[in-house]
């Protein structure tokens, strides 16, 4: 890709980087809070995916006035406002669950939680 291509596709490159980085954190990290951070980065990349193409260089907000003729598309903003609310709700619920898990297990590391659950299941299996 030429350097002009990089500048032209800058917002897409940022979007894709955030998308992949976020998804990688979700998969690769065992800490429940870090996973949620990854998930949020992943979701944020989608906001950019929607918003960036809606912006026209030199375009203004879509207000009907004689001196303006180029407008940016307002619809993606409206959609992403909704998506941000959804993202915040997801993050809040995820954090609340992490708190409850900490209270129940005493840890927020995934491998330790799995180990504690397996210990219980082995005990249940031995009882039968």
């Amino acid at each position: 890709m030429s350097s002009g291509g990089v500048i032209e596709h800058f917002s897409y490159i940022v979007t894709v980087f955030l998308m992949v980085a976020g998804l990688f954190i979700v998969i690769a990290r065992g800490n429940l809070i870090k996973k949620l951070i990854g998930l949020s980065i992943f979701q944020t990349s989608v906001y950019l995916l929607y918003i960036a193409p809606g912006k026209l260089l030199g375009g203004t907000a879509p207000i009907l006035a004689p001196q303006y003729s180029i407008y940016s598309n307002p619809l993606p903003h409206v959609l992403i406002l909704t998506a941000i609310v959804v993202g915040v709700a997801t993050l809040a619920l995820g954090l609340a669950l992490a708190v409850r898990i900490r209270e129940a297990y005493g840890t927020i590391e995934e491998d330790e939680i799995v180990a504690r659950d397996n210990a219980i299941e082995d005990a249940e299996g031995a009882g039968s």
Partner: protein
Amino acid sequence: MSIAAHLPALQVVLPLLSAPLVVLLRHGGLAFAVVTTAAWAAFACAIGLWLQVGQLDPGGAISYHIGSWPPPWGIEYRVDRLTSFVLLLVSGMAALVLPYSRASVEREIPRELHYLYYAMFALCLTGLLGITITGDAFNIFVFLEISSLSTYVLIALGRDRRALTAAYQYLIMGSIGATFIVIGIGFLYLLTGTLNLVDMAERLRDVENYRPVLAALAFLTVGISLKLALFPLHQWLPNAYTYAPSAVTAFLAATATKVSVYVLIRFYFTVFGESLVFDKLPLPQIMLGLSLLAMFVASFIAIFQHNLKRLFAYSSVGQIGYITLGLSFDSVNGLTASIVHLFNHGIAKGAIFLLIGGMVLGLAKHGAVPPAPTFDRLDGLAKRMPLTCFGIVIAGLSLIGVPGTVGFISKWYLIMAALEKGQFWLVGAILLSSLLAVAYVWRFVEVAYFRAPLAGFEKREAPLSMLIPALLLVAATIWFGLDTSITVGSALDAAQQLVKNGR
């Protein structure tokens, strides 16, 4: 305008309004009354819509403009045969599960959380109905998240601490799935400039050959497959179903994955159209392979489970394989099989999980928290709970596909679709995978019927308020296995409509 013209809006608004009302009331009994009324009202709306759609010409649809903004600018609610069929299933299951909840929740969830349980249930119902009825792509995502977020909370209400990790895991995977769906919808929006599904379908014809269309298709397929628990994306499902409160498991098993299948059908056949989905990509082959894996591997894993709920959860993953198998044929018969099985498996699995909910109450000493239904606790259960066990066996026969039950009807159409394509080996595969279902249902029969009862328990069925909804569903599995005019009739109409639109 009369109230009949506003049924599509009422369908979603009634359960939606009941949720905040219940939170304000802060009282378990009142919450139960309000949400149950709303669910029955939603069921009445669904029946009304089903009758209205029945009067239209084949291929017709009711279009409702939210706020009177005409589509494609405003959000459109669109009800065709398939929509009204799925609405019936979802609202009907809610109307049955809610009366059941009262006694079940009493023992499984702390009293001060009861009203929140009903609020979350109402939101979950709203989301599922909204996904089904809306004709707007972004609206699907919003309703999907409403139903998903409330589902995570419902699962976390389970008494076992593993319910929390199950809910967390589902939250992570569900959010990834939902985000994939938004990315797919975003690509489609950038390509077509519209969010209305019908309008989008028309405009996609002009840009069919662009690569982003295929990218959108891929993102949507993976995202929705996560939500509908297509093998191997089913990892969230077994834990979620096992540790959620009984009533929640029954409602989710009967509706949540089924609505996701509906979304997949909607995008494949209404938006992308068959030529794009099935000719340009090896999607039928991938779908066929994954469906077969689900049918065999998941059913095989089910046989070795120690917990009855987990056993039937894995069975659900296997049964979803049959639904997606029908999709992969890309024919009227295949699609009919999918739609019929979506309904049939919904009522059979709903019945089983409702009965298990009654069973765990009987396993507990008086007033204690119900234990997990592990096999060592079920010895000779048929002597203590004859009706419950008999119901599970009947619904289990339907999972196997014995003639006279609903499962047979779905498999009949699947086999017809396979023969139509000349793939005779698939008939063998369908029959073989049914044998795996025989194995896991037999495990329950053997323990419950042929072992000596555990000492120290008297004969005690579940409370009638729990037994009646469950047995109604069991009766439905027989009824719709004998009289198929409603189920197959609707599914065939819907399939013909979809396949014709796609060409």
